[in-house]
């Protein structure tokens, strides 16, 4: 967890705003989000490339609200190529002040354009929000090509310059989950918890896939027979989502929440075949931890290999 210390002595220390972290932690967040987003873009490349051929059904969302209609295919192709190249620069921390924002805005533009054809994919939201935060912060002051190039190569000390963006990403994470939980009570009411809604959502996901020629979850048919499970799972889902702010407290209670949220996403994947890749691969939860330790506390064998290579 990012530490909250060292606010000016005359001022009361504020959570999030005065969070302090070493530059390596923010650098690791850059590396994790960059790896995830570049991999996501590469894996989903066919879907994004298909956007260039679309002409009907356009209804702009996000950045695309400023468009009157679909853009020429070549614009889509060039945006994808530029974003992908910028993604590599973001990941490596190369000319980060320019390349980082290009990548984040590129992903925002591509996500906006992809979502402008009738179906928003909400799992892209958190990824883009993280990218924007990291890209606009000094996230390449350590463990980057920019840091190597800098004279002396000294890494700056820990400060709120590095801690605040990470804490802000944590805040975005928990607010996102709270909104998701709130939406269930707002749109579904208590029936979402106490009725058969969750069981019916599972059945609906399987039926939709079946009718569209996909392969439904093999566990859906078995799952919907366990009627008593679903109200418990529904209550647990809403509780986990609304309780997200406890993750900001750090320590064991944060990890309990992270495990619960991760298991919730595993359940969604198993029974509905809907994957939320960012939490499933734990990248969503990265700002809650001292993630620089992934490298500084690396196993001995990896340390030997990396030390040999750096000589």
């Amino acid at each position: 967890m990012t530490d909250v210390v060292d606010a000016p002595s005359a001022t009361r220390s504020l959570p999030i705003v005065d969070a302090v972290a070493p530059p390596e932690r923010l650098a690791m967040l850059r590396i994790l989000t960059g790896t995830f987003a570049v991999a996501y873009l590469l894996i989903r490349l066919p879907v994004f490339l298909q956007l260039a051929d679309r002409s009907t059904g356009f209804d702009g969302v996000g950045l695309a609200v400023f468009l009157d209609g679909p853009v020429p295919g070549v614009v889509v192709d060039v945006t994808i190529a530029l974003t992908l190249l910028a993604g590599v620069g973001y990941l490596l921390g190369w000319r980060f002040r320019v390349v980082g924002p290009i990548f984040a805005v590129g992903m925002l533009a591509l996500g906006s354009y992809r979502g402008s054809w009738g179906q928003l994919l909400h799992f892209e939201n958190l990824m883009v929000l993280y990218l924007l935060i990291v890209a606009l912060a000094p996230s390449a002051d350590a463990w980057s090509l920019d840091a190597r190039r800098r004279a002396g190569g000294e890494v700056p000390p820990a400060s709120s310059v590095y801690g605040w963006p990470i804490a802000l990403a944590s805040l975005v994470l928990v607010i996102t989950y709270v909104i998701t939980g709130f939406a269930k009570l707002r749109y579904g009411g208590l029936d979402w918890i106490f009725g058969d809604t969750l069981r019916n959502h599972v059945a609906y996901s399987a039926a939709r896939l079946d009718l569209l020629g996909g392969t439904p979850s093999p566990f859906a048919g078995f799952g919907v027979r366990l009627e008593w499970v679903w109200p418990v799972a529904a209550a647990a889902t809403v509780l986990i989502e609304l309780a997200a702010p406890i993750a900001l407290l750090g320590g064991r209670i944060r990890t309990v929440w992270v495990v619960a949220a991760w298991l919730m996403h595993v359940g969604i994947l198993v029974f509905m075949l809907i994957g939320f890749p960012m939490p499933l691969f734990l990248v969503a939860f990265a700002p809650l931890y001292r993630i620089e330790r992934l490298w500084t506390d690396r196993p001995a064998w990896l340390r030997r290999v990396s030390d040999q290579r750096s000589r």
Partner: protein
Amino acid sequence: MDRRARILVTAGVVGALVAPVVFDRDGFPLSTYPMYSRARGDAVTLATAQAVDSDGTRSTLTLGVIGDSDDPLIVAGELRDAIRDDRADQRCDEIARRAATWSGLPAGQLEIEVVTERHDVVAQVQGDDSLLERTVHASCEVPS
């Protein structure tokens, strides 16, 4: 960035995240996260497209043939929108063209039908009879 700026930006980010909820307006990347949040009964209307032969036998197509994508959310959402916006005929022709090149298409004279079907989804997922209602929005021949 100085402390005052950090306070302002933090407040701005919180405001931006909460704004869609206040105005009940979903968007990207700021959202109300409405997915799977509405109460749902066991009878559900679903949009799809099917191949129908001269005997009236219906065959399931694939996500790629129906929506030129492997993502069911995208395929279902776009087909639903096409039906809503009176573009079912156009979408039917697109599906028929893709179906003509699909190796899994049954033999014989075939039509594509863009439909909405109402199913008891709990029965459907358990393999029981589930079709409650079927509406054909467009039909078109598969080009040979």
